[in-house]
């Protein structure tokens, strides 16, 4: 026994010695192996980041160029002089303000609706005991496996039957439902302590009041995650708004911009196109930068769903 203990101590000491040896071995006076690795890591990351950001910079710079500057060869990288005229001009060419307004209305209402519907269902699945709870939850979870493109044709007919084509409800209502939000909210509510609702129950709150006053306030981080996700996804969504809108007054920004691009295909209005692209990207980048922490958390959660 004593012997074994001694052996153990000796092995630990041995390991420590070997670790020391390795560390001192790599500490040559000039550059250490670790520093080389770090240098390689930094250069890789920098090159990658540059290739991510350059297209955005190029978009912004091109939006500030005149026709001659855009079609100069070799390309003029920094426009001189700056030409901001593209922005008012694109607003004259297409109803950018209407598109922007429609996108904002659809994205905001969809986000709020998702938050209400998903948090209620998620709360019930996590905190209320009832019959057939788990199988029912699995049904919701399974719907996340259905690719939306498979449903797009029948969904279009449902919209037609409801006389919703080219209206806000068609743009908003189908986007309110989805298994992911319910899953995310349920995961969050499940982590809350068991006795959380007790005080509220004793005070005579019914389950809805408990959800509203006790559960929702502590679920703010999960709501933020789901909200940012839904907002960005809805703002960017393209196929569905393309199919269910057919008038300029109902189009969202991506669809309006796509039609503008199509009409100028292979022609020349790159400056105006870029200006409109800059306008469309600002809200999502803004929301992303504000809620980056929650967005990344949501992705990690999505990554753990198995």
């Amino acid at each position, binding site marked *: 026994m004593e012997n074994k203990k001694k052996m153990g101590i000796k092995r630990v000491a041995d*390991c420590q010695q070997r670790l020391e040896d390795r560390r001192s071995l790599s500490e040559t006076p000039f550059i250490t192996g670790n520093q080389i*690795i770090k240098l390689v*890591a930094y250069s*890789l*990351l920098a090159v*990658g980041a540059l*290739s*991510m*950001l350059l*297209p*955005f910079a*190029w*978009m912004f710079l091109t939006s500030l160029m005149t026709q001659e500057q*855009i079609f100069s*060869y*070799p*390309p003029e990288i920094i426009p001189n002089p700056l030409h901001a005229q593209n922005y008012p001009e694109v607003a004259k060419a297409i109803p950018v303000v209407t598109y922007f307004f429609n996108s904002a209305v659809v994205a905001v209402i969809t986000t709020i609706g998702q938050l209400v*519907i*998903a948090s*209620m*269902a998620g709360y*019930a*699945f996590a905190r209320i*005991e*009832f019959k057939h709870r788990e199988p029912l939850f699995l*049904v*919701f979870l399974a*719907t996340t*496996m*259905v*690719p*939306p*493109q*498979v449903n797009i*044709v*029948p*969904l279009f007919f*449902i919209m037609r039957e409801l006389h919703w084509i080219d209206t806000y409800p068609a743009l908003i*209502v189908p986007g309110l*439902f989805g298994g992911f939000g319910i899953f995310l909210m349920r995961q969050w509510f499940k982590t809350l302590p068991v006795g959380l609702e007790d005080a509220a129950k004793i005070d005579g709150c*019914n389950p809805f009041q408990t959800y509203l006053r006790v559960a929702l306030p502590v679920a703010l981080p999960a709501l933020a995650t789901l909200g940012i996700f839904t907002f960005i996804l809805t*703002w*960017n969504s*393209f196929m569905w708004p*393309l*199919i269910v809108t057919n008038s300029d007054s109902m189009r969202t920004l*991506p669809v309006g*911009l*796509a039609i503008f*691009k199509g009409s100028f295909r292979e022609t020349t209005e790159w400056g105006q*196109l870029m200006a409109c*692209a800059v306008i469309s*990207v600002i809200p*999502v*980048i803004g929301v992303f930068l504000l809620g*980056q922490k929650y967005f*990344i958390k949501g992705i*990690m959660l999505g*990554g753990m769903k*198995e």
Partner: protein
Amino acid sequence: MVIEVDYVKIEVMMNGKLGFKIKETFSADYMWAVWFILPAFLGTLVFIIIPIFISFGLGFVKWDLISPPEFVGVKNYLDLFSEDLFYKVLWNTFYYAALTALFSIIIPLILAYALDRKIKGATFFKTAYFLPYVTPMIVIAIVWAWIFDPNYGILNWLLGLGDSVKWLYDEKFAMPALIIVSVWKNIGYNMIIFLAGLQAIPESVNEACEIDGATGAKRFFHVTLPLLTPTLFFVSIMTVIGAFQVFDLIYLMTEGGPENSTMIMVYWLFKQAFEYFNIGKASAIAYILFIIILLLTLAQWKIRKKWVLNE
């Protein structure tokens, strides 16, 4: 005497004979749960579950939206299987998905490995890599179409190619160009998931590596990568499925051309349904896509069970 336990009511009868019967009732909690879930359930039923069945049914009819739908059995499917374009579209879709997934795994993995140490400005890097992921595809399409422009685009100028490579206008280069754009968009998302996977590897494992002298490539391939297999499988499933669903990119950059070289399933489905009004054919394509995605998911899950080390 009545004892209520959750949604089961037990009536114990004390008069005369001794006995009890169990009666199912709806407790107050059950009714509350119904109200909480009802909105989500109705919406999911009407806008997700019912359409799956309608879509399946529409695959067996011929319908051009003008004359009434006509039942034709499996004709839509048989027609598809005898059409050359179907195989081309299938091949294009697989080709696009495979190459997109390959590069959307390798590049983010390397970047995440680089980022998984004490790096100054890690937050900046994460933000920068993430921007393409949150950007609307139309914006990406406009910028990259301009970058790829054979005459005035910055890419050919940077690469010194003159106007020799016509990118989106060339049958050979259109698909590679689209793959470049989609990998560019995917990198940030996959990198974050890989980073989470790397950070979940316990510090003790890394210390053990150091003690045993396993460093650099040896450590990466023999320790880190095997421990990362669950993440790797998750990312590959998600990326392949995402690639099979691509639509915006094709619609906005090539419209399936030139010469159908970038015609892929969802875009073909869209064209059949909303441009040619072949509702039956479009629904058949949709179901084939659905089945491919389902099979892929199941196959990868099976492989995962076999190969993943640390379940």
